[in-house]
């Protein structure tokens, strides 16, 4: 499906005198599990709120599901959002939450929702407020998926969960993405988790998009060079993203493909997503962004340093 689930151009949001998000231009193609990462205060939640129509942009525009204005009826219908800390009505039993969500939406797959809560061992008559954190998150996710959305947006879904609950939660998300073709956009602090689930990465920093692209493409176009620390500066003219110096050796994360020549005395290694993300997080000035044909060419085509 050649469509962007989210497309933003010059998108900005200001709260009072502070810009939570600025000049954000990005396109996330459909069919991905996209991870939105960035330090605290980078604007992740703001971007998600704008995309689901909870907030209005101060500048620019954001469209969803192939050009629909965020927050319009068709957009609300096709997007399910699970907010941070998975807000539920604490005094309502799980069954009432299902019934509530069914009444508030055009589609609701009641049998799917009941079956899933059964599998998870979440009693239907237990009040949401009396469920564990992991169960509350699973209930919120079940409500979202039973709406049969085309895009699932999750804001820090696993931040409060223990490792087991986190694993189960992400397994459900991945199953929905794989089986039903749901596009997923999730923000997360938990970098280790992303390696397993995400195939598209958006890195926000200080309210701007720093890195955006398919994970495979990003990993294929970056290498970790290891060599003598004394020679580290010789490569300043190369597209070096981040330098980590040890006593004897320096580690350079550079933009280079596997067949690029390696200087004598240096070794090249492939990088992992976590390593790549950390390098960019440490260098807010560096960027890897797709070219002008937004959404189609998702290969990073340019490096700014």
């Amino acid at each position: 499906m050649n469509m962007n689930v989210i497309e933003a151009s010059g998108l900005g949001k200001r709260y009072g005198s502070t810009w939570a998000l600025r000049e954000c231009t990005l396109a996330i193609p459909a069919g991905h599990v996209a991870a939105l990462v960035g330090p605290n205060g980078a604007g992740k939640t703001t971007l998600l709120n704008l995309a689901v129509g909870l907030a209005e942009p101060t500048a620019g525009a954001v469209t969803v599901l192939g050009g629909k204005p965020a927050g319009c009826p068709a957009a609300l219908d096709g997007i399910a959002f699970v907010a941070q800390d998975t807000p539920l009505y604490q005094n309502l039993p799980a069954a009432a939450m299902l019934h509530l969500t069914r009444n508030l939406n055009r589609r609701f797959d009641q049998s799917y929702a009941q079956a899933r809560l059964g599998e998870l061992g979440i009693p239907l008559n237990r009040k949401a407020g009396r469920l564990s954190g992991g169960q509350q998150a699973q209930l919120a996710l079940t409500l979202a998926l039973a709406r049969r959305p085309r895009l699932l947006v999750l804001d820090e879904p696993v931040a409060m969960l223990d490792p087991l609950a986190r694993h189960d939660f992400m397994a459900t998300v991945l199953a929905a993405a794989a089986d039903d073709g749901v596009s997923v956009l999730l923000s997360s602090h938990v970098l280790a988790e992303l390696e397993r689930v995400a195939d598209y990465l958006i890195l926000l920093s200080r309210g701007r998009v720093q890195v955006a692209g398919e994970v495979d493409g990003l990993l294929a176009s970056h290498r970790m060079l290891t060599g003598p620390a004394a020679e580290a500066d010789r490569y300043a003219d190369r597209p070096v993203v981040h330098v980590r110096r040890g006593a004897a050796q320096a580690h350079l994360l550079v933009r280079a493909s596997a067949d690029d020549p390696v200087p004598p005395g240096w070794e090249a290694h492939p990088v992992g997503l976590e390593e790549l993300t950390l390098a960019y997080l440490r260098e807010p000035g560096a960027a890897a962004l797709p070219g002008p044909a937004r959404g189609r060419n998702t290969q990073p085509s340019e490096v700014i340093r």
Partner: protein
Amino acid sequence: MTTLTTPTRPGHDARLRPVPWQRMAWVTWRQHRAALAGVAVFLGAVAVYLWLTGLRMHHAEAAYCHPASSIACAINFTGKYGETVIIVSIALQAVPALIGAFIGAPVLARELETGTFRYAWTQGIGRLRWTVGKLVLLAVTVTAAAGALTVLFAWYNQPWAAAGYVTPFSPRVFDLLGVAFAAWALAAFAIGALAGMVIRRAVPAIAATLAAYAGLAFATGLWLREHYITPLATSSPNPPGSASVISGWYTKGGTFAFGDHSTAIVNTVRQLCRAAGGRVRHGPHVLQQVFNVPQCLARHGYTRWASYQPGSRFWPFQWIEGGWLLALSVLLLAATVWLVRRRAA
């Protein structure tokens, strides 16, 4: 994206059929049934009390108060129930305030406080339908409940009104009768809903609702209501029994001399009637006891005037009060919906 590319999902085209309004009935009921039940139990208890006391009052009035001047009536009716009826009518003034505080204020404040608006406002129904559906349903419910209580109170108050113990304009009963009580309940609900949306936290919103409601109700009773229609003026010493006297003043030779409670009246009476009366002490009330002020002034060519609202204006006044409260409520609820639409998360 067009319908052609996704024929199996016709719901995603531009002519999306919205989620029906009726669905909000269940949602509203399920989310607010505890608060509504609380109010229903409270109003039910009030109604049962009014009914039981009212029955005994009606019986006492029928048995002892024909004629009303009898001592038996004074003992068994006015003496026995006079205080109760005053306390009850004052206590009932609080009912709209409680409706505003405990039904109106939490509707949006609790969603904003607990973060559940992020759930509610991202569902397919959309936040506009969600808000309008909830507010309209709850507003109609509380207005109808208050209207039902009014009918009961009118019956409860009837022996007193009939015997002229309380004019229907009395600030104590005017807003419990006719359409005013229901209108005040609606206005209190609207004040609460808007306060909740603006303040975004339930407890401060409840406090603000109580304060705003009390301020509005007092201001209306003390200053606003008597001006709905220009009062009539009379120089007759006895205005009609059902009338509500607003103020009095004196004229001499056709021009205004002084008002009932002015200091000029004290000085004038002192000068004119010193010889006739005894010792003069300060203050108009003391003066009243020492001299017969109207008699003194009448002897010296002053005419006393009174402005009043005749009893026949009760229903026009009810419609005026109900009308502006309805307009205010619609305005406040519209403002609330507007704030919900534009609120940035």
